[in-house]
């Protein structure tokens, strides 16, 4: 059947494209479109009908990084008609091993403009809309309401919960992925979209249904600290595009009415895909796993029965996403006498004013191996905490924590880390273990860590 005569009588979304998804297929494809999309149109199940749905769709990609770049390339290539991209960062050299929609020549450009430059080269037909800003509770509704489907390509839990809540309130399907170091995850949420509060049937879950609470900040690592393999995050981004294209081509993004007899689809109980990439084994077993998740939770804070979540509330700061995820702030919690700036440490050392001391560097050994301050001794933060815990349980002496056995009980200790958070916790930990000898030994945090060292002392330092 060439012409699309199917209708979606239950569509009631606000986006103009929802209407278009109903009526748009009456138009012909241009010659350029026909040429460009022919290889995907002849795939069984896709056809001209599916292609026209893609052309009439609006997709929002939040995050133009390791997930967003590969996702956006396939979204643009497939001919999604309108593509919005949200990101407040600029392109840095350290992004390029994985954020392959940017370029060396565009370092310093906003990520949104850089990625759109790349996408236009790939496919000039879609309309690209740039939002060179971070998504916030204040701007989220205005942006997300303009689209049919949202792709979460962000890198922090507070924004992830915000995006999911907005997708519940605005009835948008959400394709969510995440990746750190050697692992990736992918899940399709709120699809087909169902109005908030409906729980008397089988409905798709939201992000909060599946991930009720964020992990405590102490257990979270970012790509900046833990590292990330390009193909791992890339694979998850590509898979996100695949899911989004499938949903839009099949019109699964159109909100359904309660009374509609919803056909059984596996999306109501989504699959969580997890990918584990093992650098130690060539052919890792169980690298990909498809896990069966539950449907909408009656008690869900966002989409469940009696939910108090509203658009107005979110805009006014309720719930407080930052607090919910308690993002650690860089605010100092140590008194000034227990801190020294990187510049002051350097100056004192140059002038020979520093007494004999121990300089502990608590970064991971991979970071330390790329460069360190002269004389620094590496004790990775995780290992230090492990040792400290076993000492507290009665296993050994607190001086075992110190690398230099011969140090006198009043030899000062300076602690430096990557950005100045772990070092403060290290100072606290060493004091708890009594290593300050009742105040006789000074234990001092180097403010801002190696990042400040590069910024204020040695611009050539290889900070990553």
């Amino acid at each position: 059947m060439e012409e699309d005569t199917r209708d979606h009588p239950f569509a009631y979304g606000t986006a103009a494209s929802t209407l278009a998804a109903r009526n748009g297929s009456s138009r012909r494809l241009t010659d350029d479109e026909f040429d460009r999309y022919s290889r995907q149109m002849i795939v069984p199940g896709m056809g001209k009908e599916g292609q026209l749905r893609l052309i009439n769709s609006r997709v929002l990609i939040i995050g133009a990084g390791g997930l967003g770049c590969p996702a956006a390339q396939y979204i643009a290539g497939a001919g999604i008609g309108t593509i919005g991209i949200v990101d407040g960062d600029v392109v840095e050299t350290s992004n390029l091993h994985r954020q392959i929609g940017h370029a060396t020549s565009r370092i310093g450009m906003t990520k949104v403009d850089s990625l759109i430059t790349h996408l236009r080269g790939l496919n000039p037909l879609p309309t690209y809309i740039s939002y060179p800003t971070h998504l916030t509770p204040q701007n989220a509704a205005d942006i997300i309401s303009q689209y049919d489907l949202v792709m979460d390509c962000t890198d922090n839990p507070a924004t992830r919960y915000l995006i999911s809540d907005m997708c519940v309130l605005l009835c948008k399907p959400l394709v969510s992925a995440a990746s750190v170091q050697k692992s990736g995850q992918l899940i399709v949420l709120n699809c087909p979209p169902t109005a908030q509060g409906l729980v008397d049937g089988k409905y798709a879950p939201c992000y909060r249904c599946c991930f009720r609470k964020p992990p405590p900040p102490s257990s979270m690592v970012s790509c900046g600290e833990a590292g990330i393999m390009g193909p791992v995050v890339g694979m998850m981004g590509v898979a996100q595009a695949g899911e989004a294209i499938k949903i839009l081509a099949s019109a699964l993004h159109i909100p359904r009415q309660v009374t509609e007899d919803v056909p059984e689809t596996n999306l109501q109980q989504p699959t969580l895909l997890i990918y584990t990439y093992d650098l130690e084994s060539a052919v890792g077993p169980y690298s990909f796993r498809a896990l069966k998740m539950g449907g909408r939770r009656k008690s869900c804070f966002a989409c469940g029965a009696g939910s108090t979540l509203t658009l107005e509330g979110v805009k006014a700061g309720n719930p407080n996403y930052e607090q919910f995820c308690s993002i650690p702030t860089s605010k100092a919690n140590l008194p000034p006498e227990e801190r020294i700036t990187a510049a002051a440490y350097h100056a004192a050392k140059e002038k020979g004013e520093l007494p004999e001391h121990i300089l502990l560097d608590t970064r991971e050994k991979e970071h330390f191996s790329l460069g360190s301050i002269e004389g620094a001794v590496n004790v990775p933060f995780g290992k230090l905490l492990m040792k400290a815990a076993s000492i507290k349980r009665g296993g050994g002496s607190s001086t075992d924590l110190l690398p230099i056995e011969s140090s006198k009980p009043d030899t000062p200790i300076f602690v430096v880390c990557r950005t100045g958070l772990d070092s403060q916790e290290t100072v606290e930990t060493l004091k708890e273990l009594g290593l300050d000898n009742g105040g006789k030994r000074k234990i001092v945090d180097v403010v801002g860590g190696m990042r400040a060292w590069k910024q204020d002392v040695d611009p050539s330092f290889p900070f990553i």
Partner: protein
Amino acid sequence: MADTSETTTIPITVDFSGGLEMLFDSKRRHSISLPATDGSGKPANIAFLIDHLCRNLMKDPRAELFVLDNHIRPGILVLINDADWELEGEEAYEIQPRDNILFVSTLHGG
């Protein structure tokens, strides 16, 4: 039929993913023999397994990265034979021979 003596164990595999393997000797898969009953003679369930793992398998003293107030910490999904544990009764699920229990930490990077 079944031997209910205290020495009876259930063979299962326990997997860790998303960084949790770091707490368990950096090994992603462990084959273990779980006592078939807990201290009070009740069949071993997930809550008992979590306690067992903390006591016998965890190499890292940072137990708070795995459990918080005797429950699995927020941000860790528990999968019983590849299905979310809420589909199976969460902590109360009684463990069967050859079950696969996966603990996966949710990721947020990108």
